[in-house]
C-alpha cells in the first residue's frame, strides 16, 4: 500500500527559489512586527489613558485581532476591501493583515507591561525633576520593554508562521512559492516537507538570536 516514490531532485533544483521566497517571508514578517509594535504601543496607551471614540476603536481592534481567525483578517484586506473596489497587491494584503493581527496581540502585551510597572516609579522620577516624557522614556518604557521582550519574540515567530497564509491570497512568499512548484511538479509532499524544514530553521534562528540579544540587553 505504501508505493509512493520520493523524488527530491525537483525540490533541490528549486531550493534557491525557495530560499529567496523565504527572504520575502522574513521581510513581510519583520515589517509587520515593526508596524505592529508601533501601533500596538499606541493602542495600549490609548486603552490605558483615554476615553471616548479613540478608546472604542482601539478596544475593537484588539478584540477583532485576537478573537477571529487570522485567515479571515487577511481575507478582509483582500476580498473584503476588494468588494469596495480597493484592490491591494498580495504583498500589501499580507502585510496589512499581519500588522493588524500583531498589533492587536502586542497591544495586550504592552498593556500588561505598563500595568506591571508601579506608578511610584513615575512619582520617583518626577520628584527628581524629570518631565513626563523623560520619566516615560527613561524609566517606564525600558521596564515595559523587558516585560514584553519574550512575548514580542513569540509574536515574531507567529508572524513568520502566519505569513504562510499568504499563499491563499496569491502571495509568493515561502509557502506560496512552494505551492507553485508543488502543483507544477506534483511532488507535493517533498516540497512541503522541505519547506517545513526551512520554516523550522528560520524559527530556531529567531529564537536563538533573541536569546543571545536578551543576555546582552538585560543584565538585571
Amino acid at each position: 500500500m505504501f508505493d509512493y516514490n520520493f523524488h527530491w531532485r525537483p525540490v533541490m533544483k528549486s531550493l534557491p527559489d525557495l530560499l529567496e521566497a523565504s527572504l520575502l517571508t522574513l521581510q513581510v514578517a519583520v515589517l509587520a512586527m515593526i508596524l505592529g509594535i508601533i501601533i500596538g504601543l499606541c493602542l495600549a496607551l490609548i486603552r490605558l489613558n483615554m476615553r471616548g471614540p479613540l478608546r472604542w476603536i482601539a478596544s475593537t481592534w484588539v478584540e477583532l485581532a485576537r478573537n477571529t481567525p487570522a485567515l479571515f483578517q487577511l481575507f478582509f484586506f483582500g476580498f473584503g476591501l476588494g468588494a469596495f473596489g480597493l484592490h491591494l497587491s498580495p504583498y500589501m494584503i499580507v502585510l496589512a493583515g499581519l500588522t493588524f493581527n500583531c498589533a492587536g496581540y502586542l497591544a495586550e502585551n504592552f498593556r500588561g507591561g505598563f500595568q506591571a510597572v508601579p506608578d511610584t516609579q513615575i512619582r520617583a522620577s518626577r520628584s527628581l525633576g524629570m518631565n513626563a516624557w523623560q520619566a516615560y522614556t527613561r524609566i517606564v518604557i525600558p521596564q515595559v520593554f523587558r516585560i514584553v521582550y519574550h512575548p514580542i519574540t513569540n509574536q515574531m515567530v507567529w508572524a513568520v508562521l502566519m505569513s504562510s497564509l499568504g499563499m491563499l491570497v496569491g502571495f509568493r512568499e515561502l509557502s506560496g512559492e512552494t505551492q507553485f512548484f508543488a502543483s507544477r511538479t506534483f511532488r507535493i509532499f517533498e516540497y512541503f516537507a522541505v519547506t517545513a524544514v526551512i520554516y523550522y530553521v528560520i524559527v530556531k534562528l529567531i529564537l536563538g538570536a533573541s536569546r543571545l540579544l536578551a543576555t546582552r540587553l538585560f543584565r538585571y
Partner: protein
Amino acid sequence: MIEIHDLHKYFGSLHVLKGINLNVEKGEVLSVIGASGSGKSTLLYCINGLEPVQQSNAVVDGTDVHAKGTDINKLRQQLGMVFQQWNSFPHLTALENVALAPKIVKGKSKAEAREIAAQQLKHVGLGEKLDVYPSALSGGQQQRLAIARALAMEPEYMLFDEATSALDPELVGEVLETMRMLAEEGMTMICVTHEMGFARDVSDRVAFFHQGVMEEIGPPEQIFGNPQSEHTQKFLANVR
C-alpha cells in the same frame, strides 16, 4: 525657606488637609508625626507639586509651587524626596540610578554625572556597590540609594515620607543613621516618621497631625514631654 499658608487639599469630596500653616527655615529639621491617614504624605506631595491643591500658597524660596507660571521640574530640583517604597529604578545600576537625573535634568556631562553619583553613593555608605543592580541590594541599601539619588540633584531641602516604615526592623538603623548624618551636615529636612526616637533626638521641631489638621507644633521636649493637645497625648500614649 518653605512657607505654607492656609493649605487645603481635597481628594474628591474628602477634605484631607484643612488649612495648614507652616514655615520651615533653612537648616531646620522638622519631624511630622500622626496617625495613618492624617494627611502627612499628602502634605509632602503638595510641597513638591506631586499633588495639585485646591487652595494654598506653598512657597519654596520665594517660588509659589502651584502657580501657573512655575517651572515645577526646576523647582523639584530644590526638593529631594525619599518615599516609603524606595523606588529604585530596577533596570539601572546603583551608579546609573543616581547619575541619570543630574545628566538628563541638569544637563551635566556623563562623566560629571557619574562622578557626582559615585560621590553621593560613597556619602551614604554604598561606595562598594556602584555597579550593582538594585535587585542585589537589601531594602536598607536601596533606601540609602534613594537618598543618594535625591542628594545628587543638590537639593536645598529633603522630604522624607516614612523612609523606614517598609523596612525590616534590622535595616531601619542604617537608614536613620544616614538621615541623622544629613541633619548634622545642616540639610533642611521634613521627615514624616513613626520613629519617635529619631523625631525626639534629631529634629528641631515636631509637628503632630490629626485628621488633616496640624494640631500641635513645637520643640521635641514640648511635644514629647508636655503635649498640649488631647489628641497628641493619646497618640503618644499609643505609640510608646
